[in-house]
């Protein structure tokens, strides 16, 4: 499959970005440095081109019933203008993808699947649409998504579009949706609209002082907050319960995977836990985790935390908070500990 580019590819290149392949897209991993881009989001405002992410629209009189059936959340609880993070599960309760569901109006919803899962999610929704009176429309190739993130982003959003948006709320200006969402744990928003408008938004916001941030810092920012990375922290074999995200489940409604989860809940199972490394050194995805000298798991995510200046990681562990572990890096065992998440 040939690589795809967003309309901002030449902007990224002109800014000196290092480009990598991500889920079949040529995307900027960093413009200047991951550490400085990370810091700009924690302390100022950063802007990300995440136009590779998907936009699937669901419309029709039974949209609420359908989306409640195919996600872990009961959409009857959503009001117009609400955004909700939830999981799409298979019959075994395993996560197909995590997504944010946007209530644009009672019969018009939008889902944002991860770039690598767009067709998988769309096919799954189609397959399970059955007798629901809805229509599904994958407009991923027609919409951009920019994430403006950091404590200074509300000010920049006001300056740019003369608007504001609450956390997990959305406002609509013409065909453009602005939502109080993101993947960094900071204040901020995501702007989603027709591709033809992306360059204008990007250039204006960069001109106003938003720092371009690549996928490298996007990963360290999300990891410090314990947010899941699709395809890495879950790969189709883990339930929502194991990821520690049971708060995304509304048990008071019927949805695909619910029965399996009810059964699963009865047994003891490892959960995705955070680990902090106390020795000097950096841990990476795939590094083995040891407890009492025995290999018990592998890291699904691992990096340096630019904020903590320590190695941090995620692993499925059947261990309590505070338990000492070691992580093997190039034959050396680095001492660490299971910690409560988020890391900060």
């Amino acid at each position: 499959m040939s690589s795809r580019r967003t309309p901002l590819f030449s902007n990224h290149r002109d800014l000196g970005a290092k480009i990598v392949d991500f889920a079949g897209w040529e995307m900027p991993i960093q413009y200047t440095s991951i550490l400085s881009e990370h810091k700009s989001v924690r302390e100022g405002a950063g802007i990300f081109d995440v136009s590779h992410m998907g936009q699937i629209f669901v419309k029709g009189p039974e949209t609420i019933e359908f989306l409640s059936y195919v996600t872990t959340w009961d959409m009857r609880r959503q009001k117009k203008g609400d955004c909700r993070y939830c999981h799409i599960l298979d019959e075994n309760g395993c996560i197909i993808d995590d997504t944010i569901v946007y209530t644009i109006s009672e019969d018009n919803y939008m889902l944002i699947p991860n770039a690598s899962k767009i067709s998988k999610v769309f096919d799954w929704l189609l397959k399970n649409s059955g007798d629901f009176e809805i229509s599904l429309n994958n407009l991923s190739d027609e919409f951009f998504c920019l994430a403006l993130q950091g404590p200074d982003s509300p000010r920049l959003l006001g300056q740019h579009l003369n608007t504001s948006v609450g956390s997990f709320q959305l406002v609509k200006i013409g065909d453009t949706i602005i939502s109080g969402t993101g993947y960094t744990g900071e204040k901020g928003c995501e702007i989603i609209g027709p591709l033809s408008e992306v360059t204008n938004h990007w250039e204006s916001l960069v001109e106003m002082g938003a720092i371009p941030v690549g996928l490298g810092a996007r990963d360290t920012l999300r990891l410090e907050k314990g947010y899941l990375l699709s395809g890495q922290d879950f790969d189709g074999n883990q339930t929502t319960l194991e990821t520690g995200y049971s708060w995304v489940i509304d048990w008071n409604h019927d949805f695909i995977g619910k029965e399996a989860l009810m059964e699963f809940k009865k047994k003891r199972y490892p959960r995705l836990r955070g680990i902090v490394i106390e020795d000097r050194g950096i841990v990476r995805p795939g590094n083995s985790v040891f407890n009492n000298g025995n290999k018990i798991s592998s890291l699904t995510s691992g990096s340096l935390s630019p904020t903590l200046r320590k190695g941090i990681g995620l692993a499925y562990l059947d261990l309590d908070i505070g338990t000492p572990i070691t992580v093997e890096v190039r034959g050396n065992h680095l001492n660490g500990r299971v910690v409560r998440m988020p890391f900060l």
Partner: protein
Amino acid sequence: MSEVPDNLSYTSEHEWLSLGDDGNAKVGITDHAQDALSDVVFVELPEVGSSFSKGDSMAVAESVKAASDIYAPVSGKIVSVNTKLEESPELINESPYDFGWMVTIEPTGELEDLLDSDSYRELIA
């Protein structure tokens, strides 16, 4: 444009080498290499006294995203290591040819297959 000082020798693995009056070789990574690596956040250095054959991985420089092996540009014994890099790995980015040096090696083998500054400039052009 990366800096390539005239007075150093280079390897195709992007290390530089400077031969001292005592016959020992000081080794680090080039400006081009540190730029490609980006923020160096961790450096694993060899023990003083350990020996390496030319081409062995003798150290590791890690950025946020990746770990890169640093190869011995010549066979020999490690005489000293830049312990400042343990606390301040960013010296490799800030001063790759000076404060960011990594090790000095007492060569036991021939200094060969090294590039002069012009050849190295050509390599990274």
